[in-house]
Every structure is written in structure tokens, then in C-alpha cells.
């Protein structure tokens, strides 16, 4: 029980590390996912191909492998960044593939007539997507995006193996200090629960506010 109270600064540091990874990676994933979803429904064939390739490669690569590729691969091309930033890149790009598909499924729920009406009025592809299709798709993509971001929060644990400070990684230090592994992990699990339940909470609020009225 006193694992937490004795080592609160250590836990707090790990917890903050995970929160930071989650927040920054989510922002990157949402932004990239939206761009890629737009690409996948664009009238320009090369953009569609790029979006499809992006999803195919990132969604089908194990996340750990992606971390290796980013953290070991990019420095070889002269790109040296802090490990935390590399971790955000890897997590954000990986998750963007899932966000993209969630948004695209939302776009598919909007009747085609909505887009046709907008186009027949002379609206461009960007205007049609931004003003007509996405606002209506938004309602139905809230739940799957919530799930994807919860998965992202938990996936961030992988960054701990690449010398990034985050919650799961604290167990090593605690183990070296001789604390019971079980209680160390219980408190780590509670830390993750706080983060994932917070994400659930945010998305529940969004859903009750913007969700499809039935």
C-alpha cells in the first residue's frame, strides 16, 4: 500500500509522461487521420492512393516494429530528435491509420445525396466535405474514435522500452527498490484507469452533446 505514498514523485512523473504522450499523440493522430480520410475520399486519384497506402502500411505494422523503425531508422537519415518526440511520431502516425478508417466509415454513413446537393450548388470538394459531410459524419464517429484513443493511451506503454518516461516504466525502478511487484502494478493499473476513464468521460459528453438523436 505504501508503494504509492513512498514513491509518489516517481509515479507522478511516469503518470505525467503517459498523459503527455497520450495528449500529443492523440492530437497528431486526429489531425493526420482527418487529412488521410479526406485523401481517401478525394476526387484526385493520387491522393486516394496515398491515403490507402498510408493506412495499409501503418495499420499492418506492429507498433513495436514501428518504434524501432522511427527511433533507430530516422537518426540514420540525420533526423535526431528527443526520444519523447520520436515516440509521439510513432504513436501518432500509427493511430492516425485507425482514426482515418473510423472517420471514413462515418463519411460513408452520410447519404450520398447530401454531397450531391452540395456539389450541384457549386461547392468545391473541400467545402462539401468541411461544411456538409464531416459535420454529419462527426456524430457517428465519436464512439469509435474514443475507443481508438483509449487504445493509444495503453499503447503508449511501449515507449517505456525506448527510454521514454511513462507510467509502466516505473515498475523497473520500484522493483530495484524492493517493493512488491503486485502492488507496484496495481497502482500503475490505477494510473492507466484514470487516463482511460477520463477519455471515456470526454467522449461520453461529446456523444450526448453531438450524437445522433434517436
Amino acid at each position, binding site marked *: 500500500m505504501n508503494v504509492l505514498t513512498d514513491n509518489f514523485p516517481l509515479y507522478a512523473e511516469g503518470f505525467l509522461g503517459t498523459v503527455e504522450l497520450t495528449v500529443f499523440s492523440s492530437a497528431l493522430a486526429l489531425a493526420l487521420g482527418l487529412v488521410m480520410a479526406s485523401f481517401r475520399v478525394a476526387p484526385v486519384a493520387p491522393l486516394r492512393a496515398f491515403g490507402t497506402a498510408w493506412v495499409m502500411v501503418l495499420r499492418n505494422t506492429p507498433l513495436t516494429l514501428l518504434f524501432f523503425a522511427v527511433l533507430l531508422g530516422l537518426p540514420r537519415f540525420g533526423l535526431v530528435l528527443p526520444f519523447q518526440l520520436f515516440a509521439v511520431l510513432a504513436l501518432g502516425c500509427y493511430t492516425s491509420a485507425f482514426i482515418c478508417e473510423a472517420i471514413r466509415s462515418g463519411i460513408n454513413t452520410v447519404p450520398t445525396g447530401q454531397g450531391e*446537393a452540395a456539389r*450541384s450548388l*457549386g461547392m468545391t470538394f473541400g*467545402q462539401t466535405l468541411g461544411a456538409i459531410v464531416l459535420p454529419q459524419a462527426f456524430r457517428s464517429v465519436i464512439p469509435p474514435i474514443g475507443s481508438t484513443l483509449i487504445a493509444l493511451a495503453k499503447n503508449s506503454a511501449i515507449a517505456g522500452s525506448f527510454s521514454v518516461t511513462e507510467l509502466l516504466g516505473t515498475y523497473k525502478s520500484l522493483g530495484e527498490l524492493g517493493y512488491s511487484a503486485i502492488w507496484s502494478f496495481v497502482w500503475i493499473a490505477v494510473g492507466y484507469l484514470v487516463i482511460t476513464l477520463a477519455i471515456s468521460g470526454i467522449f461520453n459528453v461529446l456523444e450526448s452533446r453531438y450524437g445522433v438523436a434517436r
Partner: protein
Amino acid sequence: MAVEPLIELRDVNKHYGPVHVLKDISLTVGRGEVVVVIGPSGSGKSTLCRTINRLEPVDSGTITLAGRPLPEEGRELARLRAEVGMVFQSFNLFAHKTVLANVSLAQIKVRGRGREEADRRSRELLERVGLLAHAEKYPAQLSGGQQQRVAIARALAMDPQALLFDEPTSALDPEMINEVLEVMRQLARDGMTMVVVTHEMGFARSAANRVVFMADGRIVEDRSPEEFFTAPESERARDFLSKILKH
């Protein structure tokens, strides 16, 4: 009629997979003309209507609007579409916007009008179709006939040179058909260029300058409503009319 041609289709062909839906279609619509397209279902009349603003691209042939050929998908085409309003069978009002916003949106985004100016114009048009009182409602709160009148107001808000109607009354309850047809008759009287795909023979008789009869992807007859309804030339048209005019 010696009027300036506004819409011209020449030798237009279109396939859906193995199905040849438009076969060598040539059609000219003059400025101010009302052309009603009728025919059995599957005859390609809706497709024909949708090719005019390139919601359906064609395989071959040319389509010109006011002498300019339809451009490829992109900004150029968007500009041209703003000149040709379209009214759909299923209304297609923007479900997440109020009636007023539905009519104002494209004026703001495409015509670059300010919100106040756009809303003022929208209210004028809603008044004209008799729906000003419903301006703040959402489409789902209106009846089908009311939604379709809003859709007509929305198309008119762009000050288009022509209007396309793709079976505008086919999804309506019988008692609501007339309120929509009345708005369309008024537009015809005001000199709007219109291409109307419909099954409303009464409207064709009373408002059309020409009736185009389509069957199996071809234009079979293209004549005045008077001639067409009293003495159709083709066997196909006689057969069609005998089926629908009996009751």
C-alpha cells in the same frame, strides 16, 4: 423556336458497366424553354438530367452550357454547377442545418455574399415558396412537399441560368404534389429555363414547351406537348401513354 441555345448535348453516350444507359443523345434546350422528359423507368431520363451538371460523367459526346463545354471535375466545374440549379427526388436538404441556413449556405460559400445579404435573399425566396414561417426549423420537421419547396428556393438562391428537376414529386404524398408543381409552374411562367424529369403528365401538358420521350436510353420523340399527347408518332410512346393515361 429561334432562341439562343443554353444547354446542348451532342451524341452523348454513357454506360453503367455493361448497361448502355444513354445512346447517342442529342438535345438542345433554349434559354427560357421548359423541357419535360418522360419515359418508363430505366429509360435513362434521370441519368440524362444528371449528366447536364456532370453529377454523372459521360463516356463520349459533348455537353455545353451557354456555349461552353463542361469542364473536368474541379473548381471550373464547381463554378459552372452554380449556374445550373438541381432539385432532387429525395430533396437532399442539409440535415444538420436550418431551412434558412440551407438556402443561405451556398450563397455565402460559393457566391461570396455576406451572411446578412444571403439571409435577406433567402427570406425573399422562402416567402416566394410560402415557407418563410418555417425558416428556423430543421428539414426533418417539414413535410415532403415543404422540403421540396425549400430545395427549390435553395437552388434559386444561386440565381442559376437553368434548373434541373430530377423527379421532384416522385417521393411525395399525392396531396403534396400540387404545392410543388404550382411553384414550378410559376417558375416556368417567369421564364426560367427548366429541364424536368417527371411522371406528372398534367404538368407536362400545361407548363412544357417541349416533351422529350425517352425509352431504352434513346430519345424517341421530341415534340410539343399538344402533338405528343394527342398524336404520338412512335409505337413505344403510344404504348407508354395508354398505360399511364387510362386511370
